[in-house]
């Protein structure tokens, strides 16, 4: 799946399903206090930003970010190297890396005519 997500050979539905699975994996790991598991699906810059801002290891810091538990998947959108996964109660943005989809931003709430406001994001 990682290879097909990188090359874009998989169908849009398959890529959306793969992105949604990673999004759910993140929130499930946080809900289960599995900080290491949650950090494993973060994009490198998002992980680095979290460590910098918290001044603690990622596996500890991510559990204090107040991310919601994984709700039902409402919609996924995939365009090129990016995906948006909407769950009941959260919206996540993911990008393609050599290992597959990784979460760039989570805990996002929409703002009119502006980018989403995200609890966790890279850059």
């Amino acid at each position, binding site marked *: 799946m990682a290879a097909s997500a990188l*090359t*874009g050979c998989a169908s849009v539905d398959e890529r959306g399903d793969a992105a949604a699975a990673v999004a759910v994996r993140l929130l499930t790991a946080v809900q289960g206090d599995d900080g290491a598991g949650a950090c494993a699906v973060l994009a490198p810059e998002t992980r680095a930003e979290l460590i910098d801002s918290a001044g603690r290891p990622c596996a500890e810091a991510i559990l204090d970010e107040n991310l919601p538990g994984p709700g039902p998947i409402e919609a996924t*959108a995939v*365009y090129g190297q990016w995906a*948006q996964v909407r769950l009941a109660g959260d919206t996540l943005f993911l990008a393609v*890396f050599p290992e597959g989809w990784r979460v760039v931003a989570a805990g996002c709430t929409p703002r009119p005519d502006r980018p989403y406001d995200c609890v966790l*994001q890279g850059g």
Partner: protein
Amino acid sequence: MKSFLRDNSLGLVFGLLFLLVLAGQAIAGQADFNDRQLTDGLPPVPLGRYLTSASFAADVAENWQSEYLQFFLFIYGTVWLVQKGSPESKSLDEIGRESDEKQKVGRYAGPDAPAWARAGGLRRTLFSNSLGLVMGLIFVASWYAQSVAGVAAFNEGQLGDLQDPVSWSQYLAEPDFWNRTLQNWQSELLAVASMAILAIFLRQRGSSQSKPVGSAHSATGVEG
């Protein structure tokens, strides 16, 4: 073989240059795309992935549509529009679709005329407008392709900026679509106007697109 190459050198050379420049665009486009990937903290994409991306398709299609629009407008426009002194214009007294005799169709068709020029009805009408029609159809198809690839490329940027994607119909009202479209249209229209007017006063010896060097500035519809 040598005479074939010489007799078809215009189409062959420009066709080859097109392929070379398209390859150059692909390489430069991939580098530009990957610069933005790195800025976003994302890994670079291989050339094959870039060639199938919406970004590349939109960049190619937006230029194609404007070129075919230019030819479509020029072909149809020069039926009725003239430019005194320009080799791009026909004579000032030939405005319009011209007579069957002048156009060598129907009973005026010569023995070597295409069959559909000799025929009547729909076939002759179609063939009489086939150049403009095909240019127009390619324009519409490539403009549509630009919109489809453009919305996907636009949405990739939207997601990268942590914003919602838009639908195809919403994209048609986005500044991105019209900026891509109009920046190409203006340059094509400028090129046509420049060629029609500059060729009144300037010459290129030996070129089919220029009047003979010694022709008067006022001579219209004369090509070298």
